[in-house]
């Protein structure tokens, strides 16, 4: 019984903290992203590139929410990186994230030269979104298309 109570309290705390956390949208450069991934040894990173104007991206966002919800016990970080224009941060991205109650970490890509940053993220990327990068240690998988939940989970498990 005590265990359950601890579990519930812990669960609430977790829920609360992630809810709170998810309401913010921070700027991130490609360097900062790579730094973050390098630091988190043994973790799996699922990095999704999306935008508020991209309909297929919005359609697949719930899959990324579900992925992190269902794998809470695993070392998994889902990072949702918006490529919306920087000028849309407060007018589009922040309200969207609030409205959709997104719990994963959301960032806005703080880069201005696509010629340079697209290749630094992934040389094979043509620039279309949605695009998803899965990284665990030395393993990398880049997918430049919309994913169903089944496809996402398959790629996650296969990595």
């Amino acid at each position, binding site marked *: 019984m005590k265990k359950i109570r601890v579990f519930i309290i812990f669960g609430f705390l977790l829920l609360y903290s992630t809810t709170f956390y998810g309401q913010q949208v921070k700027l991130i450069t490609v360097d900062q992203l790579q730094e973050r991934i390098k630091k988190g040894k043994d973790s799996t990173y699922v990095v999704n590139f999306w935008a508020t104007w991209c309909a297929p991206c919005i359609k697949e966002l719930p899959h990324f929410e579900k992925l992190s919800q269902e794998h809470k016990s695993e070392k998994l970080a889902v990072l949702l990186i918006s490529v919306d224009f920087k000028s849309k941060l407060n007018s589009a991205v922040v309200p969207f994230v609030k409205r959709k109650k997104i719990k994963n970490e959301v960032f806005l890509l703080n880069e201005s030269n*696509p010629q340079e940053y*697209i*290749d630094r993220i992934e040389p094979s990327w*043509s*620039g279309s*979104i949605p695009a998803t990068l899965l990284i665990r240690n030395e393993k990398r998988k880049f997918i430049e298309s919309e994913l169903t939940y089944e*496809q996402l989970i398959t790629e996650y498990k296969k990595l």
Partner: protein
Amino acid sequence: MKKYISIMLFLTAFLSQAQSKTLKAGEAAPDFKLINVDNKEVSFESYPKAKGFIVVFTCNTCPYAKAYEQRIIDLDKKFKPEGYPVIAINPNDPEASKADTFAKMQDLAKEKKYAFPYLFDKGQVVTDQYGAKHTPHLFVVSKSAKGTVVEYTGAIDNDPEGDKEVKTKYVEEVISALQKNQKPTITETKEIGCTVKRKAKV
């Protein structure tokens, strides 16, 4: 196990479909015969006097395509008289993207007074031949003794939002190099865009 295999097969088919190679500078630019919004067929052969073409895969729906629409109209205005007309092709499947039907394309071309063809690519055949990945995705093509050749592929300029004071106008630079009989210095660029809409494979 069976399920796993079928998922794998599905995924392989899915990914191989999504990865038709984008044509690069120096490669042959295949001619096509596609239906225009005025119901007439258009191909490279429709322009016997052209020196080349600005082939742009664009659509009704993508915010990036909309942001670039006026710049596409301006490219045609500037370069058609110089022998490089714009040919716009909508790469999206109309079932997958309801606002990209032929009728809606006709509406847009009329509303925006497109002075260039806006072609419907039934079955996404030309889209796959060129390996167009997103909208807008642009190819500069030149006519040579060997036929039509890709000179450049990528973005129109490096300023999608249209607010940079100093911008590089890639397409203009490519054409001005071609006009001087020079090879363009930049032949490939990358840009964020909306992925080409396809029917879900079952």
